[in-house]
């Protein structure tokens, strides 16, 4: 690089520079044109709101985060489990997979009110909604992964008299791991989206209010800076979830999968 910083430095510096330029332009536009904060708050106003409302927003974030993480864990567990069932029985896969697709393509906003009526416990209702959105990428990816075992390795396992269980444990599951983890990374973001959508539909629900409801509430009260602050927290949460899952994936695959082998290693 002629700029004197390495490629890695540029990867960090370039987006940060763009972000600073964007925020400065935003701040300048709001100030120079005198745009009122209930139309578009300046970044400084949002930062101030984040400071004053921070503690209560963080409490709400915890509520949303709990639902998200529980839904993601359930998606990983049941998604992986369903994919394993599909791998054991082709008939089961053919019979049930279309319904998983139906569940996936039906907008969660449309199903959420029903789920909230049927499941009386608010936390559980929100969890179910977030799970419905999050489980499909894991089921679909893991199913593909379990069916992707190398044909010659399969022949070799048969030659040595391996049982179906051994083939699953020693061959299909390791083959499927990168696929499962790719699904998990997608599901992390989707679980958060599912939790937020469900909260929007459910409203306050119980004694605790999540971040999504705080956004709605701030909108009603024209407390637009607080709305932006809550939105910012949601985005940051999504990014952190993605980075954590990405890190987990790299740790688990670092010894062997192309996606995670460090270039120096080659």
């Amino acid at each position, binding site marked *: 690089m002629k700029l004197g910083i390495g490629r890695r430095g540029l990867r960090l510096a370039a987006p940060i520079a763009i972000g600073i330029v964007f925020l400065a332009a935003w701040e300048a536009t709001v100030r120079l044109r005198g745009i009122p904060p209930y139309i578009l708050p300046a970044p400084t106003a949002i930062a101030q709101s984040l400071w004053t409302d921070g503690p209560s927003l963080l409490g709400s974030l915890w509520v949303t985060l709990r639902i998200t993480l529980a839904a993601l864990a359930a998606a990983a567990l049941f998604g992986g489990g369903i994919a394993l069932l599909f791998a054991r029985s082709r008939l089961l896969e053919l019979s049930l997979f279309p319904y998983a697709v139906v569940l996936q393509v039906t907008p969660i906003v449309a199903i959420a009110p029903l789920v909230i009526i049927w499941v009386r416990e608010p936390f559980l209702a929100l969890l179910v909604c977030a799970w419905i959105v999050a489980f499909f990428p894991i089921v679909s990816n893991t199913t593909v992964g379990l069916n992707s075992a190398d044909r010659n390795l399969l022949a070799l396992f048969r030659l040595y*008299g391996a049982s179906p269980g051994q083939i699953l444990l020693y061959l299909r599951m390791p083959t499927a791991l990168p696929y499962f983890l790719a699904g998990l990374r997608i599901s992390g973001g989707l679980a958060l989206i599912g939790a937020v959508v469900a909260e929007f539909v459910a409203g306050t629900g119980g004694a605790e209010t999540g971040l999504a409801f705080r956004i709605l509430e701030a909108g009603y009260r024209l407390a637009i800076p607080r709305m932006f602050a809550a939105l910012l927290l949601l985005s940051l949460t999504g990014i952190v979830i993605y980075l954590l899952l990405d890190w987990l994936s790299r740790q688990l695959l670092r010894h062997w999968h192309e996606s995670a082998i460090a270039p120096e290693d080659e």
Partner: protein
Amino acid sequence: MTMSEPVVVLRGVTKRFASGLEALGGVDLAVARGEFLSLLGPSGCGKSTLLRIVAGLAEPTTGICDLRLAGAPSKSIAAGRIGFVFQDPTLMPWSTVARNVELPFRIAGRVRAAERDRVAASLSAVGLAGFEQAYPHQLSGGMRMRVSIARALVTEPDLLLLDEPFAALDEITRLALNDDLLLLWEAHRPTILFVTHSVFESVYLSTRIAVMRPRPGRIVADLPVRLPQPRDRGVRTSAAYAAMCETVSTALAAAMAQAPAP
């Protein structure tokens, strides 16, 4: 070589795939114990299909494939009595070299000290001692193929099946592995069925060569290789080697002339 009792007997073996393709059109073959037999032919002549039938990985459409392995009932997939090496190393990328070689034992449900010793011995026999904890992606193509051979040898099989194992390797690696394979064969004397499309390789390695023609696959020439044993690189420059290569090339050309154009 004296014709002792056969280990593999094929009688009238044909194979027709669901697509209608006739891969094998009546193959008769007997392989004696301790023989190094090469199946030589152009691609599409059914060599690999024949090998898969012998391994029990495919069923012949008609005909009989009879295996007589020591300590194993005839015509069953005799776990551990057959070693198979594919054209690709076919290793599990998520497992270390040692774990890959140990696979036959892990499937058999016994990995104790004795088995670990055999894994180590097998790896050192192919020149990979010290690489036990490496992962396949850290090795070169030739080293991966050595791991694959070590895995096939670890159960000390009676019958070793190799399906163009060196076709994807560079010439230097290939020659080195040819010599290593000969040493391993001389040390343990398993019966070897070796699929190749290289005349020079088949003459250098084998005690006998079966030349095949394609569409449908058939054995058209059965040639004993009478070169001194044990063989070393000096053989490659001898007049007898050149003459045998000439004979085999002629047989292969004749086989191709009989076959319909590709």
